[in-house]
């Protein structure tokens, strides 16, 4: 087990190198003017200013020098101040957000993380539960209903569903508003008395003892969670169902029945753990997908997460910002992949011991 985890950890630097090379490669398609955003806040106005930047930050140097400088940044000879350097968390400047990309991420990511936190249980656990029910009642009513649902779910686009629930629950019923917080709650959060512990609004409001703010934050997330559940349930239902059916056909399930186990124990003690091996991967990537920002859902519900920020940047051709988000996403993916691999080893002795 330890050797397995160490081997996985050794892969991480390699993956990081791959991701950075990829993103750096894409940066090379940009003009020097656009690339200057990696190091300076303002767009160089004159030819002369641009030349100065190219010289100063080595944008005319060979690629490997540029790559190195992109990683560690450039120190100003006079002031000793560093600019750029993704290893130090400097992803350049977002000209659309008029702030460094890193601080834009820092501002938006907690919102996405908050949404992920509350979406994981309904999206993944309920999805898996649906799949197990469908498999256990194979060809029964629940299974057929699930099949119809998963076909509709897979073929009905997110934005259509999102707009539909927005029409019903916001426009018609006025139950759940879009956005992040109501104005009054926003004022509470911005006021001096409200302390930020985790940057996650739901957690912070609880820690501050503001149940009303907590409810308001949760209310704003309900429709996005509903939409995310709807699009992911279809996948989880299908994958869990087929994995579970496959497992239930295994001979060791017959063995378990022959031993004299109750059917419930056969399903939940013997079949489910084995069926979960495939589902763990899907769950891992779903969580990564949620954490990386769900562009369409966040946009439809005007939810200020990193998905929406990236979409806004892309709409305004702020490529440095978009690539900053891509890099951040890559980091999350690598970490999550590592976590999934470790969970794999925990749930499957064949992986653990090989």
């Amino acid at each position: 087990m330890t050797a397995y985890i160490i081997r996985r950890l050794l892969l991480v630097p390699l993956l990081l190198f791959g991701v950075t090379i990829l993103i750096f490669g894409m940066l090379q398609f940009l003009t020097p003017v656009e690339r200057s955003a990696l190091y300076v806040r303002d767009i160089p106005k004159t030819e002369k200013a641009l030349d100065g930047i190219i010289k100063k930050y080595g944008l005319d140097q060979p690629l490997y020098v540029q790559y190195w400088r992109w990683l560690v940044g450039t120190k100003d000879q006079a002031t000793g101040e560093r600019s750029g350097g993704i290893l130090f968390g400097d992803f350049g400047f977002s000209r659309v957000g008029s702030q460094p990309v890193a601080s834009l991420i820092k501002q938006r990511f907690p919102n996405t993380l908050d949404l992920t936190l509350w979406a994981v249980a309904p999206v993944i656990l309920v999805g898996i539960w649906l799949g197990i029910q469908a498999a256990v009642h194979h060809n029964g009513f629940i299974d057929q209903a699930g099949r119809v649902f998963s076909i509709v779910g897979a073929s009905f686009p997110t934005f259509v569903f999102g707009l539909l629930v927005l029409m019903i629950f916001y426009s018609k019923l006025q139950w759940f508003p879009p956005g992040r917080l109501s104005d009054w709650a926003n004022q509470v959060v911005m006021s001096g008395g409200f302390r930020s512990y985790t940057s996650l609004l739901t957690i912070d409001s609880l820690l501050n003892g503001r149940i009303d703010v907590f409810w308001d934050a949760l209310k704003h997330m309900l429709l996005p969670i509903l939409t995310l559940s709807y699009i992911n349930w279809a996948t989880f239902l299908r994958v869990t169902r087929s994995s579970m059916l496959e497992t239930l056909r295994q001979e060791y399930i017959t063995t378990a029945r022959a031993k004299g186990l109750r059917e419930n124990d056969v399903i939940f003690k013997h079949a489910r753990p084995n069926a979960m091996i495939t589902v763990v991967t899907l769950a891992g990537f779903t969580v990564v997908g949620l954490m990386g920002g769900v562009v369409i859902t966040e946009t439809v519900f005007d939810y200020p997460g990193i998905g929406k920020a990236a979409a806004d940047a892309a709409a305004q051709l702020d490529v440095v910002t978009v690539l900053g988000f891509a890099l951040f996403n890559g980091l999350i993916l690598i970490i999550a992949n590592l976590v999934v691999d470790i969970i794999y080893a925990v749930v499957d002795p064949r992986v653990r011991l090989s």
Partner: protein
Amino acid sequence: MSNHNNILVKTEDLVMHFPILSGVFQRQVGVVHAVDSVSFWVRRGETFGLVGESGCGKTTAGRTILQLYRPTSGHVYFEDIDLTKLKGEELRRMRRRMQMIFQDPYASLNPRMTIAEIVGEPLLVHNIAKGAELEERVREALVTVRLSPTFASRYPHEFSGGQRQRIGIARALVLQPEFIVCDEPISALDVSIQAQVINLLEDLQEKFNLTYLFIAHDLSVVRHISDRVAVMYLGILAEMASRDELYNHPLHPYTQALLSAVPVPDPVIEEKRKRIILEGDVPSPVNPPSGCRFRTRCPLAQKICAEQVPVWREVAPDHWVACHLV
């Protein structure tokens, strides 16, 4: 029917049909006649061999007897208890007394459980032992099948086929059952390991007074291990007799053909020996032939064979056969 009191397991007109579902609404479009009106009995302490080609329904018969498939009709008696009438808890409790050894030692062990968990679970679910006593019982069971007790904390994938099969046997034995269905327990193993497992099964039978239903397609192995043998063809029984009677005086043309296919380890006899080669393939169990199911391949088939189903009857003491021509 001699020795009536000694019968441990008996089937009466056992039928197992599997529906074939098709189309959008999963309507039943046909039926697989896996087991059709099969009647035989197994005496306490004996090994009853059930032979037949692949797909003839012998595995289904074994599983239906243990109620792993619920039969379409017919009865299975364990002593005087009709297993087909039992449900839920009652059936679950009966499983202490009847166990199964599976054909595939790779697929039949849960890969996520340790050997101790696999072997010990039956004791737990039947509330027979737990804690230290459970460990001791598992240890005993492993020693009985000649495995080291130190294997208890390992997982199935760390073992060879022969070792896994012995784990499967330990699992079946741990409940101290009276009756064990051995479903082709050696056909997935290397030849060198087969003898080892067969000998183990024989030793265990002697030690614990076990009754075996031994399902196999290998006629030599069945001859070696069985006291009585039944031959199955396309879901029905063709012939049943004591081992020596069946191997020396086969009456059913199918039994005769099967036995003639067993090679003799003597080149002189082997060369002179007459072989009956069966024509064609086994018909589909979805549409079995009318009358006698073997008639399409029987070298002796006559008009009556297509018209009437042969009666399963005792033609000599303890020698049963289903054929119009006997």
